[in-house]
């Protein structure tokens, strides 16, 4: 399909889905596809990512890591390392404050112990010390010379090992939340539950009941840019930190908390971020580089090697999931009983809560129970990954739904339509849905050419659906008009997928000016007001709302100034097509440049800041169809065709909406087919490189066709919902269903590797 076809698809989908969608057509700039403001720097190699900051006199820092999965640290001797050539500073856990009695939150205490181990190491790769030296080679040699004496303990690497009776405990002092003491299980940090109706009644009303157990494995976000930080602490105690993260304000507060420093003493400048997907919402190297810089009196740069990224930065959880669904012969779901057990890694805090909230959020089920457990084990602490928690749960639920559809001989889309959540449905996690676009995504797929097309030999087709809340949150935007009348829009939200463009598009739309004349930038923590992390698909929604708000105030200010210049009443001025105009057309309209030129006489510089905490995020839904072809003799899967439909609310920059949808799908394909963490028995990671951690490569894939559905979010001025995350949620279920369709066997364990598929085929053959 060509790019033009793709646009056509978008229009087709728009036509299919109600009149609300003509709203986008009413915009002049929103919905267009300008070149992004940071684009030229990124295609010419000028853009500075985390590791690209170079300061005079800069040292290189490296980390010494635990070779053991679980051990007590008896002693650490850094004398030899500190005396080695080029070494300027060595730090260990003894150099960090103990937060446990400081009133800090449990998460802060965990984070502090994750960035630098204290009395115990909890996974292979856990940091035990860090060194700054003139060169990386010198620093590495010194780190290798640090002598750590360990008292090695038994470790647990899987959910089953961790929760078995008598399992070694990672945190003997841990008090489980939500679990009665008599039900306590080893290494279980908490239990969450969402319940409604009566399961017994629900299953009694069912004509068909299907129950399956699933496992999924830890997978990594796989951003191409490794974690990096450059710190420069001056002798007056002020510090600067450059790093690539999804939120420099969060990095500042987490780093200073861990170090026990004053928050506002540190200025964090966001570098360009080379992918995050949730994994760059927390700290690893940042506090280490700050402390090394303070100790050495020199700037310090730290960059992870790829194997460190895999061994020690957050993957997402592996899980054990059990799903039991009941439905009437006509296809109405009557009951859902779901158990989710998620790996948290070495410290509590898996996304099992979100998994439990989202597991059946697509559907209106009268009786359900969703129970989730958060389990610690001797693996790196998990971090957020695109719709954290939701994809694994959806994989299980969508797989069982497929079985129900087969059992009842109902088309899988019809079954989902019969049970789909719509406006007014009480969501499984509590609130009542306002206008949502789930049904529209199902209809879009049902009517697309792909769903209607015939399949070839050894091919199978699968459907999957997914839900994600999307979040709002805090954002600040400043809009400045320069003396020449051009505009700079500044926010505090790192741009990880083209959001600078969306901010510029909002400003262009609100002020009626050419988007290509607008600068769209991201300020550091000293320059712009606070913003929450770029995550939860919130930037276009919330930071966008702040930009819109600032532009609306500015429009008002510009009208006021024009009135002053004309010496007329404010009410006689309106802002039309980028110019101030007298309602009676009696004055020559004033452009932004005209108003800017006289700014000194009408109240001084033209600058507006808006800061807000946006509520009203719009729920996102996605429906996907995939065709796979299986080699029945090797179990090799090829994805031959893929179409994804997603409700974007309003697509501000359609190219980047499509990009988010396609990126999410391909990550989901990797998760479904090949990606997994493989541990050796000693707890070390066996596949800590991109050669063996198999993310999809270009030749593995077809084009990913996109259908943008636009059911505007009623709570946002432009109807935005947030598009970054939900696209990954349906994919593994869709692929599993397609594989089932192709080979006639259900795979319940991820990844669905050639080996697993061939096993299933062999078993079926007798």
């Amino acid at each position, binding site marked *: 399909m060509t*790019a033009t076809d793709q646009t056509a698809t978008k229009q087709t989908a728009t036509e299919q889905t109600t009149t609300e969608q003509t709203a986008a057509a009413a915009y002049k700039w929103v919905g267009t596809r300008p070149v992004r403001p940071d684009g030229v720097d990124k295609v010419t190699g000028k853009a500075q990512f985390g590791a690209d900051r170079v300061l005079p006199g800069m040292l290189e820092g490296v980390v010494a890591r635990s070779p053991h999965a679980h051990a007590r640290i008896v002693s650490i001797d850094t004398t030899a390392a500190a005396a080695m050539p080029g070494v300027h500073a060595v730090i260990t856990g003894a150099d960090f404050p103990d937060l446990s009695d400081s009133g800090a939150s449990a998460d802060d205490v965990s984070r502090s112990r994750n960035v630098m181990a204290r009395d115990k190491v909890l996974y292979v790769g856990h940091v035990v010390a860090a060194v700054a030296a003139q060169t990386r080679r010198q620093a590495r040699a010194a780190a290798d010379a640090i002598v750590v004496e360990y008292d090695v303990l038994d470790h647990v690497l899987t959910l089953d090992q961790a929760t078995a009776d008598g399992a070694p405990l990672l945190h003997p002092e841990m008090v489980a939340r939500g679990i009665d003491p008599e039900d306590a299980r080893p290494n279980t940090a908490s239990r969450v539950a969402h319940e409604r109706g009566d399961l017994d009644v629900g299953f009694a009303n069912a004509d068909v009941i299907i129950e399956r157990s699933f496992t999924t494995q830890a997978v990594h976000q796989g951003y191409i*840019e490794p974690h990096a930080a450059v710190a420069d602490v001056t002798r007056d105690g002020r510090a600067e930190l450059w790093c690539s993260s999804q939120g420099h304000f969060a990095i500042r507060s987490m780093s200073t908390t861990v170090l026990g420093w004053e928050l506002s003493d540190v200025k964090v400048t966001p570098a360009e971020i080379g992918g995050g997907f949730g994994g760059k919402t927390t700290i690893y190297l940042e506090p280490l580089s700050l402390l090394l810089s303070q100790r050495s009196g020199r700037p310090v740069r730290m960059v992870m090697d790829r194997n460190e990224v895999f061994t020690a930065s957050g993957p997402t959880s592996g899980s054990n999931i059990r799903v039991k669904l009941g439905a009437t012969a006509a296809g109405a779901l009557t009951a859902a009983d779901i158990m989710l057990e998620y790996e948290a890694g070495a410290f509590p805090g898996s996304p099992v809560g979100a998994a439990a909230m989202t597991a059946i959020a697509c559907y209106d089920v009268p009786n359900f129970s969703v129970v989730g457990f958060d389990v610690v084990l001797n693996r790196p602490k998990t971090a957020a990954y695109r719709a954290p928690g939701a994809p694994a749960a959806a994989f299980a639920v969508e797989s069982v739904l497929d079985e129900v559809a087969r059992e009842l001989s109902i088309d899988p889309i019809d079954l989902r339509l019969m049970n789909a959540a719509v406006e007014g449905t009480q969501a499984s996690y509590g609130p009542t849905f306002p206008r949502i676009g789930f049904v529209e995504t199902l209809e879009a797929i049902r009517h697309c050419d792909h769903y209607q097309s015939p399949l070839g030999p050894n091919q199978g087709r699968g459907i999957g659906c997914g839900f994600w809340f999307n979040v709002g949150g805090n954002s600040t935007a400043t809009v400045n008009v320069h003396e020449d009348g051009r505009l700079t829009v500044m926010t505090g939200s790192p741009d990880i*997928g*083209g959001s600078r463009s969306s901010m510029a598009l909002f400003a262009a739309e609100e002020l009626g000016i050419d988007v290509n004349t607008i600068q769209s930038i991201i300020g550091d923590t000293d320059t712009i007001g606070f913003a929450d992390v770029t995550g939860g698909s919130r930037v276009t929604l919330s930071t966008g709302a702040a930009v819109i708000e600032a532009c609306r105030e500015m429009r008002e200010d510009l009208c006021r100034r024009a009135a002053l210049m004309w010496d007329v009443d404010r009410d006689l001025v309106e802002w039309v097509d980028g110019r101030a105009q007298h309602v009676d057309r009696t004055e020559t309209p004033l452009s932004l440049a005209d108003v800017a030129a006289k700014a000194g006489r009408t109240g001084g510089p033209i600058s507006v800041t808006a800061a807000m905490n946006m509520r009203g995020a719009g729920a996102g839904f996605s429906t996907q169809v995939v065709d796979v072809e299986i080699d029945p003799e090797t179990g090799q899967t090829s994805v031959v065709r893929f179409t994804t439909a997603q409700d974007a609310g309003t697509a501000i920059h359609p190219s*980047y909406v499509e990009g988010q949808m*396609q990126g999410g799908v391909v990550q989901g394909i990797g998760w479904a087919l090949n990606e997994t963490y493989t541990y050796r028995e000693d707890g070390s990671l066996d596949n800590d490189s*991109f050669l063996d951690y198999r993310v999809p490569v*270009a030749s593995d894939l077809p084009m*990913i066709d996109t259908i943008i559905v636009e059911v505007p979010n009623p709570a946002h001025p432009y109807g935005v919902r947030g598009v970054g995350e939900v696209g990954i949620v349906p994919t593994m279920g869709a692929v599993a269903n397609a594989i089932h369709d192709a080979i006639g066997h259900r795979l319940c364990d991820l990844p669905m590797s050639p080996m697993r598929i061939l096993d299933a085929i062999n078993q079926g053959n007798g």
Partner: protein
Amino acid sequence: MTRTHVQCNVNGDEVDFLTDPAESLLNALRDQLGLLGVKEGCGTGDCGACSIMLDDAVTCACLVFAAEAERSTIVTIEGLADADKLHPLQQCFLEGAALQCGVCTPGFLIAAKALLDRNPDPTETEVRYALAGNLCRCTGYDKIIRSVLAAAEEMRNDHGVSL
């Protein structure tokens, strides 16, 4: 530590630097010559972010010892555009939204240039295989592939190649 003296041509300039022989060409380009557009994603040849043209052949700079660059000719992402005009691949990447975070982009552009130098009219499958050594985790490759095909077409038209 004995350091080796290396002389080579980078992006049209004769340059020289001293290097520890164990150092990679990637580190030399970044740290000694300041060519920070060449990215490290893995350091082991698996991601292609460090792709450069080394004597007209696309290569992972992380898999070359800096000392090997003696008397070689190197083109990095910094040398792709003319002074006043982007390379058609760069222009098509921008217009086709072929980058999200952009960290893989320098490597993709160099690898795509190597492909089009050799094969000005590749099929989609040929583009996919030629770029299989470059990982992108953001885009799902779709828009990258389309942009390379678009650039190829533009370059063929510019060179007056009739098909």
